[in-house]
């Protein structure tokens, strides 16, 4: 997990495919607890007893993250800068 993080930024500039992760960010005011994020980001996001997301590990696969952001019905998800 840690190995695919730090060197990624420098590789992006050289046009090499990146394996970097991006942090998933939940807008807590916008979130309505539909739980789509947890069904897509199964490793990183779980739901509390009321169905609101618990982000166990913010760093997610960028492709899966993009899907979660697109499918969130409350538009409560966004991806932060790669790390």
């Amino acid at each position: 997990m840690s190995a695919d993080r730090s060197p990624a930024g420098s590789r992006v500039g050289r046009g090499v495919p990146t394996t970097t992760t991006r942090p998933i960010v939940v807008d807590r005011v916008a979130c309505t607890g539909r739980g789509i994020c947890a069904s897509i980001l199964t490793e990183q996001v779980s739901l509390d007893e009321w169905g609101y997301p618990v982000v166990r590990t913010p760093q997610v696969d960028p492709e899966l993250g993009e899907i979660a952001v697109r499918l969130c019905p409350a538009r409560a998800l966004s991806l932060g800068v790669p790390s």
Partner: protein
Amino acid sequence: MTVTSTRADRSTTPSSAGPLADLLESAGLTGRGGAAFSTATKLRSALAHDADVIVNACDGEVGAAKDAWVVEHHLDELRRGAELLGRRVTVAAHRGTPTARRITAAGLALLEVPHRYVSSEESSLVSLAHGGLARPLTKSVPISLGSKDARGRRMRPTLVLNAETVWRVAQIEALGPDWFRSQGTLDEPGPRLVAVSGAVARPGVVQTSAGVSFGDLVAAAGGFSGRPTAFGIGGLGGGWLTAAEARGATWSGGDLAAYGLRVGPGIVSVLDDTRCPLAHVARTLTYAAGESAGQCGPCMFGVPAVAEDMGRLAAGTADRATLQRLRGRIGLLPGRGACRFPDGVAGYAASALRAFAPEVAAHLAGRCDVEGRGRRVR
């Protein structure tokens, strides 16, 4: 001890940020509203963005009283401090309070704030000042740099400072950083106000500094009015020390850190042996549950759930599974709201479970040793 001689020694900060920020940095002034962030850093950012100024005189925390005290006794200096910080100044106070009336009578612009705990949170005040609701906002960028309102419209950069902080700014400008640093500790310099309430003879605001003993704090409030069992530190955003722990500690960040607490917004409330600490904590958490803005699910559902579990514990109807569920619910509150209210509530509840561990054990066994005088509570 003139202001200029101290100023002359400092050349490390950009002059564009303003000499006042340098002065405040020399003094080591930090926010007296609880977050203890460097006032100089906040001011530099505000000056760079020509920020509006909101003086927070809401006493929003449970047990707070010092903002009202500053407005009542030092309004001219408060005004002076605010005018040093920016050109457009508003003072925020709860609607219909004597504090609000004093601000208006003095000819200062008043921001009338509705009575709710989270109404006086930084982004709530800025939202309210921009014609929105007094509710915390999701912060895309810091409020001091101009965040966005609930509809996504950009708001003016705004510097929000606690009333005591602004009063201290005026004092530091007039008396100098050396005067300021002659009080308090190296880590927490300067005079501080503490609202002392609960089982004391004369509840009120005490002028003191970090490093004061709890005994001296209570003495300044007329002494104990009963037999103390615990000290509430910092209201709902703080937690608890037992009376025995308080005897061996001073009111300072260094000593309080051992218990996960801070000097915070300057609040000490004394609990005596006529009241069950768990029942008191449960009542406070029930109050907290009604103070959520109801915007974020984890807070809207989590805080009432924590209050309910604590209520069961206090009533002697909780078992080990309830306690385990309570700890789990507390653990899921932090970092999951637009503001830090759920974080504060989680810290308060966890601190109560720590300080009142013997009472927790007694209640699990169906016994309350305080209000029930050892009788079974179920």
